């Protein structure tokens, strides 16, 4: 019956036919439902695609509603991965060039990060207590609101405080300094008009604060955040200060790793879908290896993969250094900074242990905006 067709062609055709069929067990259904389907002989989506809900429910013993859900899951698959449409690297590049980064008010750190804190990515700030993690977070919460005509992104911020270290007094300091700073830069009418809505009060009204007392509250908040972000499309920054605090005391470490991984994926998804820069802070811990102790970021090895960019703040004598420890877009670099009464700023010395990557087109296009450069120059005034 097979005629003279070579067996190899048949083999190829058949294996192809098999791979076209998606196994039922890979569908997002509850294990009980999958069991019933497989038990009734339905192994692949091809077995199901032509069925009606009523038919399916009769043959498998699933309720009608369940049968409907099964068929929805099957049909959704048909379109070749709907909801996850692909784009080419060229399209992504165009998107990246359209989004501005959030300036840190430290021109050297901005340069090392390729123009500031990238929107749409997750960045982790780790460091010992008192080195300036919260200061950088507060600075960014204000910076993200710098109007667009000053080279900012003019966005709102959601700030999740788990340590209780969001102190209004300090936010007012930083906000007032930023307003004063921008008012010195006003050159044209557009900027003058923008200053009307860039005041200490508007800055405070654009910071949405959440206080979470334990990890469950944090998980709950993150679950509800996508709705908040849809309602507040101007949000460009999400800060969690810190993610370590609620997760440090945990008895079941494998459970912790799993929850943290889930949290990381939620953050990445939000950063990408809502064009938000995600900033999380992490504590340092001592790792003993043999007789040597070493300072490493807390929450374990697995968590280290969660943020796209890892920024390490550390003391070197009395100087404060910020090192980019990992970043897919930038080369590792170390810059010096200081914390002034106005906020996070460049260090005085011009001598910097710095390594810059060759400038790319993107960099040039970003830095060629005159306002932005002005802002940078004046940030060390």
């Amino acid at each position: 019956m097979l005629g003279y067709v070579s067996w190899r062609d048949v083999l190829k055709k058949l294996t192809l036919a098999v791979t076209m069929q998606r196994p039922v067990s890979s569908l997002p259904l509850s294990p009980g439902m999958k069991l019933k389907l497989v038990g009734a002989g339905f192994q692949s989506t091809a077995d199901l695609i032509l069925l009606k809900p009523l038919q399916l429910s009769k043959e498998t013993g699933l309720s009608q509603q369940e049968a409907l859900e099964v068929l929805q899951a099957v049909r959704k698959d048909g379109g070749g991965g709907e909801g996850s449409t692909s784009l080419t690297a060229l399209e992504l590049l165009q998107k990246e060039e359209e989004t501005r980064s959030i300036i840190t008010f430290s021109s050297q750190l901005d340069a090392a990060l390729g123009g500031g804190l990238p929107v749409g990515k997750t960045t982790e700030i780790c460091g010992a207590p008192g080195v300036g993690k919260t200061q950088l977070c507060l600075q960014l919460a204000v910076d993200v609101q710098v109007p667009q005509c000053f080279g900012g992104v003019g966005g709102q911020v959601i700030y999740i405080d788990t340590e209780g270290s969001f102190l209004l007094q300090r936010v007012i300091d930083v906000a007032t300094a930023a307003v004063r700073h921008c008012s010195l830069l006003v050159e044209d009418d557009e900027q003058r008009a923008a200053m009307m809505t860039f005041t200490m009060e508007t800055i405070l009204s654009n910071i949405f604060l959440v206080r979470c007392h334990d990890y469950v509250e944090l998980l709950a908040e993150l679950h509800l955040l996508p709705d908040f972000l849809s309602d507040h499309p101007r949000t460009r920054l999400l800060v969690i200060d810190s993610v370590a605090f609620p997760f440090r005391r945990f008895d079941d470490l494998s459970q912790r790793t799993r929850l943290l991984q889930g949290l990381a994926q939620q953050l990445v998804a939000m950063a990408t879908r809502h064009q938000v820069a995600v900033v999380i802070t992490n504590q340092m811990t001592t790792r003993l290896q043999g007789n040597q102790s070493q300072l490493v970021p807390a929450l374990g090895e697995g968590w280290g993969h969660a943020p796209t960019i890892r920024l390490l703040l550390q003391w070197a004598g009395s100087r404060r250094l910020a090192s980019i420890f990992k970043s897919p877009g930038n080369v590792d670099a170390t810059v010096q900074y200081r914390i002034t009464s106005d906020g996070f700023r460049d260090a005085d010395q011009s001598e910097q242990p710095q390594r810059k990557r060759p400038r790319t087109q993107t960099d040039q296009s970003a830095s060629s905006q005159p306002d932005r450069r002005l802002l940078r120059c004046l940030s060390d005034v």
Partner: protein
Amino acid sequence: MVVLREGMCPGLDEDLVRGLRAADIKTVEDLVSSDIEELAQKCSVSYKALFAIRRVLLAQHTAFPVSGADLYEELLSSTAIVSTGNPSLDKLLDSGLYTGEITELSGGPGSGKSQVCFGVAVHISYQLKQSVIYIDTTGGLTASRLLEMLQAETTNTEEQMEALQRIHIFRLFDVFSLLDCLHGLCSGGLQQASVGGGSVKAVIVDSVSAVISTLLGGKQNEGMSLMIQVAGVLKTMAKDFNVAALVTNHVTRGGSGEVQPGLGVSWSHIPRTRVLLERVEKAVAVSRPGLRSATLIKSSRQPCHIKEEFDLQWWSRSKGGPSLGKRKLDETDS
């Protein structure tokens, strides 16, 4: 256990399926193992027709014996080796990524996994003029970095843009989206991506552990089954479409502080080749922060635990300076 459906083979129409079902014959297995004569009477169909149907179904659903020689021939005709573009890595991998196989890169944070993936993607799209599927599950893909790597290869903007267009990106962040995407690629997506460029030579998943490890751990076992699903579809895709699958994995620290790839024992059987990337912690590293070491920890072709050093800067080196990589190679040889 395949359900009988109308139109599966000539002669198997709706009426017959209903009739068979009434006789408690639901699956192919039921049919081929039943007494045809008795069945023919029960369903009032001709014995001949039923016999013919059985033959076709048997032919469709039995495994074919394949001789080793044929398999080897098949392998030779279909397997290709895709260079990573980096001589040190190619040496480690016995000249590059093999199509039809899964290759895994594991390493700690900042060990350069994504950078290697970028480099491979750029090399395939620019040098080999073939398409690449890049599945980004960590949000780490930065197109400007890809551009930067391309700029090191050529100054021709047109060529850069063409190469970028041959890299197809999926950004998805949970395991079901990943499964949807991989199955979608199997049923036509791969051919679609090939249109307008070369054929797809590699599928990169960076990282596979990010979506799976959210489901593992504790007393829960649903994650294990989903992990095997991902492994299965990756494997069949690599085999049937002759693409190289490159996945990244995180690392965990064992009891005595040694580093090992994540996702546990069940996953360790999935990739054919596993490479561990690490930062080089020595004096040289101060002047060359991009220096990394790669260790082969599983391979069916090379002895394990070969170690090579390479520089992440390799992919963004300026055009005039390929000597850097060469010198590197000599160093490791000596």
